[in-house]
């Protein structure tokens, strides 16, 4: 890999160095240092968008080095059309998270910023790791920073929420470790994700591995019925923590499904499709109903996340191009939109110190700009045409329609309900009559908060109106995933020369990745 700059290593290392660096400055400057690091990381990541070869579904910007020699574990990174948008989403959101915490975090600022930066490095690592053990290391490494973010800087019930988050996700992911080890011995003694994605495993093995993967990924997504940690964690976490949780951490679960479960275990994925679809639809409808009933803004958005992530898991298990592309699209969209909503809650919480809808009514008069942002993010979240979520959810529904019309009908209920709970929320928060004693507190959005919110609004409309740049980049990679679900007749032909093909396929992957 002599061809170019180690982009991904730089992206991962820079925040980690930044996390160490903030401890050497004073609290006041820690914010600036952290922001500078996050912005620098964003600037490094932006060129990747244009350097990325959209015509190829292979891993690009690959880096590989031997990490542990026995068993062979590599430090191997790379991006394809599925992980590229997620990495960029991470680097875009992190500076915003730091900005929104500028004044709301007053105690132990340095540690807080360090935790955010460690999270950033680990999350980029998760999305770009191409070695299963490396992936697991990044996957688990973010548990402790997140635990501390919730537990140290969180709300009144933070201890409970923090340990619940930690134990839920840890219990899910320990089974993933066993599955990784089993795959190593069954899949030709390798932890290489690309190589493992080309192997074929017996149906029985796939069944168990799928369940183990499911335990890890479904808790993270979170799918119904493993979602109960999410409302607690969201409500108690500081704003930046909620944004990271909702926008990036949840995506790791669905990313796990599309990167591992689908390509490695195609037979089991198909066998489990009915279950996955049912759970997804339950999540869509149940999440929406729960959101309707919430009086707490953060809880409302948390349950709306459960509902929206249901669309993602639904789309993934359709095994057609519309479904999976829509799902990946929706992963990015949910990150942007829900991130924006949580930022909005953070802004109002800084002023009124309440997240209750009842305490925050009638904000249009005193805070017109704020109300505008809230309305835009809400409309995007409910999938208004012209905004980003419309593209994603529409594609998922088309994909579902091709598979089952009844499932589509049920899933569509989620969109209607989303309109109900979001518009109702907007109606109360934006268009009521504010309590007189609250008025002095209701200062409108300041410049720093504008800087935080505007990029997301731009992204909402850019993706909503011109989704093609993202779609073209992910198209070849998604096709590659779908290639694992070829009809039996074609599969037969390819199994005859499986060894030859998979070898050739693997080397060409690397060869092509070498070319910039």
């Amino acid at each position, binding site marked *: 890999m002599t061809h170019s700059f180690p982009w991904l290593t730089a992206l991962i290392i820079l925040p980690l160095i930044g996390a160490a660096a903030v401890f050497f400055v004073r609290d006041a400057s820690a914010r600036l240092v952290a922001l500078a690091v996050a912005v620098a990381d964003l600037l490094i990541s932006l060129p990747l968008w244009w350097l990325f070869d959209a015509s190829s579904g292979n891993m690009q910007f690959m880096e590989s080095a031997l990490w542990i020699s*026995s068993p062979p574990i590599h430090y191997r990174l790379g991006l394809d059309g599925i992980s590229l948008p997620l990495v960029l989403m991470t680097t875009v959101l992190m500076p915003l998270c730091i900005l929104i915490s500028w004044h709301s975090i007053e105690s132990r600022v340095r540690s807080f910023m360090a935790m955010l930066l460690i999270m950033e490095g680990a999350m980029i690592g998760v999305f770009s790791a191409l070695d299963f053990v490396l992936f697991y290391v990044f996957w*688990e490494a973010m548990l402790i920073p997140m635990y*501390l973010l919730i537990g140290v800087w969180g709300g009144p019930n933070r201890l409970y929420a923090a340990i619940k988050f930690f*134990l839920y996700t840890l219990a899910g992911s*320990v089974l993933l470790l066993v599955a990784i080890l089993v795959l190593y011995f069954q899949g030709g003694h390798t932890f290489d994700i690309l190589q493992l994605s080309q192997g074929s495993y017996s149906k029985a093995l796939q069944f168990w591995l799928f369940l183990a993967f499911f335990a890890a990924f479904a808790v993270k997504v979170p799918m119904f019925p493993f979602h109960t940690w999410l409302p607690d964690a969201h409500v108690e976490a500081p704003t930046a923590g909620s944004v990271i949780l909702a926008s990036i951490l949840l995506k790791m679960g669905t990313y796990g499904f599309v990167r591992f479960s689908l390509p490695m275990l195609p037979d089991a994925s198909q066998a489990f499709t009915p279950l996955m679809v049912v759970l997804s639809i339950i999540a869509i409808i149940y999440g929406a109903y729960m959101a309707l009933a919430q009086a707490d803004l953060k809880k409302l958005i948390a349950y709306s996340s459960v509902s929206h992530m249901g669309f993602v898991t639904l789309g993934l298990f359709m095994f057609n191009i519309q479904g999976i592309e829509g799902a990946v699209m929706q992963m990015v969209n949910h990150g942007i939109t829900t991130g924006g909503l949580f930022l909005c809650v953070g802004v109002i919480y800084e002023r009124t110190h309440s997240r209750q809808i009842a305490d925050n009514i009638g904000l249009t008069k005193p805070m017109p700009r704020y109300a505008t942002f809230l309305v835009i993010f809400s409309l995007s979240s409910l999938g208004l045409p012209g905004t980003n979520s419309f593209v994603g959810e529409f594609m998922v529904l088309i994909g579902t329609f091709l598979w089952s019309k009844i499932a589509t009908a049920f899933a569509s209920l989620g969109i209607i309900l989303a309109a109900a709970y979001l518009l109702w929320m907007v109606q109360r928060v934006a268009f009521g009559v504010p309590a007189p004693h609250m008025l002095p507190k209701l200062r409108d959005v300041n410049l720093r908060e504008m800087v935080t919110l505007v990029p997301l609004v731009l992204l909402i409309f850019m993706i909503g109106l011109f989704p093609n740049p993202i779609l073209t980049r992910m198209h070849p990679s998604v096709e590659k995933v779908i290639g694992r679900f070829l009809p039996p007749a074609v599969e037969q032909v390819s199994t005859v020369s499986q060894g030859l093909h998979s070898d050739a396929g693997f080397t060409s992957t690397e060869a092509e990745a070498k070319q910039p």
Partner: protein
Amino acid sequence: MTFAVGDLFLILPELLVITAACIVLVLDPVLRPSDKDGLVWLSLGTLAICMGLTASQMSAPVEAFSGLVVIDPYGAFWKLLLYFVTGLTILLSHSYLKEERLYFGEYYGFVLLALAGMMVMVSAADLLTIYLGTELMSLSLYVMAGLKRSEPRSLEASAKYFVLGAFSSGILLYGISLLYGATGSTRLPAIATAISGRSLDDPLLLFATILLAVGFGFKLAVVPFHMWTPDVYEGAPTSVTAFMAVASKAASFGAFLRVFIEGLGGLKANWSAIFLLLCLATLVLGNVVALVQTNIKRMLAYSSIAHAGYALIGVVAAGRLANSSGISSVLLYLALYTFMTFGAFAIVAMLRKDGIEGNEIEDFTGLSKRHPVAALLMLIFMVSLAGIPPTAGFIGKFYVFMSAVEAGMTWLAVIALIFAAVSAYYYLRLVMVMYMREPSDVTDSAPQLVMSPTLSIVLACAVAGVVIFGLYPNPLVQLAMQAVLTLR
């Protein structure tokens, strides 16, 4: 049996350690108190020389004294680990004894004598030599556990440790004698040869295996032979507890593995079933009982019991695998366990609450405000003990579980990992107390950490091991794999 003078050179490290121990014991009464620090430096210097000598013995196995002792990479691995732990213990004790006002020059002598016993244990190729080493180690530890003469708990710990230790030594000796009766030898290679022709169902062999397993079970503190551990760990001076939890466990594992792999390798099918039961019981009980502890030393005691359970997974796997990956995973696990456990005990030893040693978990309340660095180090040790990457604890668990999966016991890995998730609860409770709780009111004094240069060295070594081997374990992995190659 002939005596070759050349053999003395092979056991030069052992001789040096014993000589240093004697010098310390003799010089202590005649030295002025202000000069007694010299004894510490003498002990550390000896360890440094031994480390160099042992590192040069990492080549092919050489038998000495007609096969009573074997000098091989396997023993050298354990010895290097033991020197390291002993060095840390001496450094920690230097601060701890002053703080606790325990002035005993003999202390360092006993540490070195215990080390000599452990060194004999890991390089002995004869059951009686192993027994000698075990006794030398145990007798020194009995004395050290009771060093806080004014404190009843310390005396109770010492007495309890002595009674149960003597009992277990008796069982071990009984097992050795039965094995001698069955095979006609106490040499491990000769026992292996004698066994190879025998049936697995031979009651005498089976009984001897069980007795040896029980005897070693006491030393390793695996369930159900763990009863002494929490009481002794709690009562003993903390520096001694750290030494016991790490060094004595490592040496016992060293001798135990050699006996069961080299000597009783033919009975793999029998003993791996026994250890499977012990392993499951240890994992479950160690982790579950640790959940309800309020005393940090007792919590760490149960945690060390649970960790012996994880190491046993490697032993069980070794019993079912043709290759040596199970054994090397045990070596690796114990080596990595050393850093995190010793680091945790070092912080416990130096934590002061209202002027006395703070042993309750509650005493850590708000440590992160008062001593952010110490709290961060404790956080790293706890995370590592819980086995979360990127720390050494994860690497250790990874290799142990890998050998279990390789041996076809995926279910064992699943159970062990679920209990690893359980263990995260009690390790994180300490993190929670340190970081997320404030001292209840102003009169409640904040915990203090008595810092000293030697403590800084100890903590730096421990945290460096946890972090470096968590990020780049390759050298240690290679060392562990080479060390077991010559184990027959």
